[in-house]
């Protein structure tokens, strides 16, 4: 009997390669399931948003909510994706993704969900455990930053709705939130 040492067999007869392939397939199926769930959630949120927009049009009137008032000047998207890599490790292969909401070109500090400090601009921070002092400083600065960014975020939201007027119906604001989500 010839024993093949290059492909060691396991108890259930599967090779390492097959086990890895099965794991990849399972991971793919999980990712696909998550993707389909997200697609469904996106679809229902968009449906809600479109109906709320129609409701806002019904409430405010067709002269105040119509396609002709949409702003044709360039403006940033409500949500942008910042991709950074650790400058210290070029070959790290793992980019750092950060979602930024309502990032205004005139106000770089109005970023929601981003770890913000003066050091981060120069050295994108990897997730790591720091000292207690650093953690407390970061927590208090993050809390302060989250309160500070609420007002700029709200201002950006109001600014994007300003094409329909300053005093808009709460239904239009609800539609904006649905599309933002």
């Amino acid at each position, binding site marked *: 009997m010839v024993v093949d040492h290059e492909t060691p067999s396991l108890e259930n007869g599967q090779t390492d390669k097959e086990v890895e392939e099965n794991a990849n397939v399972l991971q793919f199926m999980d990712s696909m399931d998550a993707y389909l769930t997200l697609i469904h959630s996106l679809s229902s949120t968009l449906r809600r948003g479109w109906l709320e927009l*129609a409701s806002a*049009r019904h409430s405010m009137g067709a*002269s105040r909510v119509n396609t002709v008032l949409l*702003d044709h000047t360039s403006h940033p998207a409500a949500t942008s994706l910042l991709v950074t890599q650790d400058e210290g490790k070029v070959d790290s292969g793992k980019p750092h993704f950060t979602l930024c909401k309502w990032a205004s070109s005139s106000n770089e500090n109005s970023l929601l969900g981003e770890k913000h400090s003066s050091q981060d601009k120069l050295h994108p921070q990897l997730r790591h455990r720091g000292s207690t002092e650093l953690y407390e400083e970061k927590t208090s600065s993050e809390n302060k930053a989250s309160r500070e960014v609420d007002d700029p975020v709200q201002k950006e939201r109001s600014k994007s709705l300003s094409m329909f007027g300053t005093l808009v*119906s*709460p239904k239009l604001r609800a539609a904006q939130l649905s599309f933002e989500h």
Partner: protein
Amino acid sequence: MYGFEAMTFNIHGGYLEAIVRGHRAGLLTAADYNNLCQCETLDDMKMHLSATEYGPYLQNEPSPLHTTTIVEKCTLKLVDEYKHMLCQATEPLSTFLEYITYGHMIDNVVLIVTGTLHERDVQELLEKCHPLGMFDSIATLAVAQNMRELYRLVLVDTPLAPYFSECITSEDLDDMNIEIMRNTLYKAYLEDFYKFCQKLGGATAEIMSDLLAFEADRRAVNITINSIGTELTRDDRRKLYSNFGLLYPYGHEELAVCEDIDQVRGAMEKYPPYQSIFSKLSYGESQMLDKAFYEEEVKRLCLAFEQQFHYGVFFAYMRLREQEIRNLMWISECVAQNQKSRVHDSVVFIF
């Protein structure tokens, strides 16, 4: 002299009152709305509407229909009926009928100015203007840089000229100033219309006072709710409220300081006619407020037809048709978006 309109009204107004009462009979009924709410597509809606007075206006529209097409054609019918009544009317009815359209004129002015501020083409803006609010020099509005120029170049020769005295400044036209201009103009228009109806006297004054007071109060509530969380100060908010109505002046003082919907409810529930409106809403909710106000308005407009020999029937008919067009707009949106379960959220039955 109130009570003696029966002796003289029909000399000049009898024919047109008969015409408007005939038009009123053509408003869609609950059965029509039930059929429309069960439509699967906009073409089904067109088929059902072909059996109503809207039939001739929709029959030549090609498929696939769009929701805006249905609204445009239904509005065209209203415009045709209005123009027919206007050309047959004598004074003071002709002035009364013109007053009904000034609100649309204000909306069109603001639409052109806002669209120009956002660099939109003037022709596209003109296509979206309400036909009842059109006037000859409306396209020239795009040239104005501030309110003084707006008045001097264009509006001085329009019926809106007297309403501009309170908002003429040299400030540039930005979003906030345009919004304040819109509401200031509308406030001046409502007050002027109210005074005109008071001058007419009789049943017209009595019925129109009630309808216009309700309109002023509803605008005060909407301004309050829409300005919560915005940069509009309390003083500026108070200045936008009309100087008449059930809420004037004490209700306005309370509304001016409201910071959320529950405070608005607290201010409004002191007035019995509005207590019934807010009783339909749960605490913290404002989504159904529009429908509650529309229902109350429709009730009052229908009551206007119970009495004869006054001009209120013309105002009531125009508003009921506009409500009907809003209903059709909502039903068509729900059908187009396959959201028929939500169709009764905003439909207000007239009969």
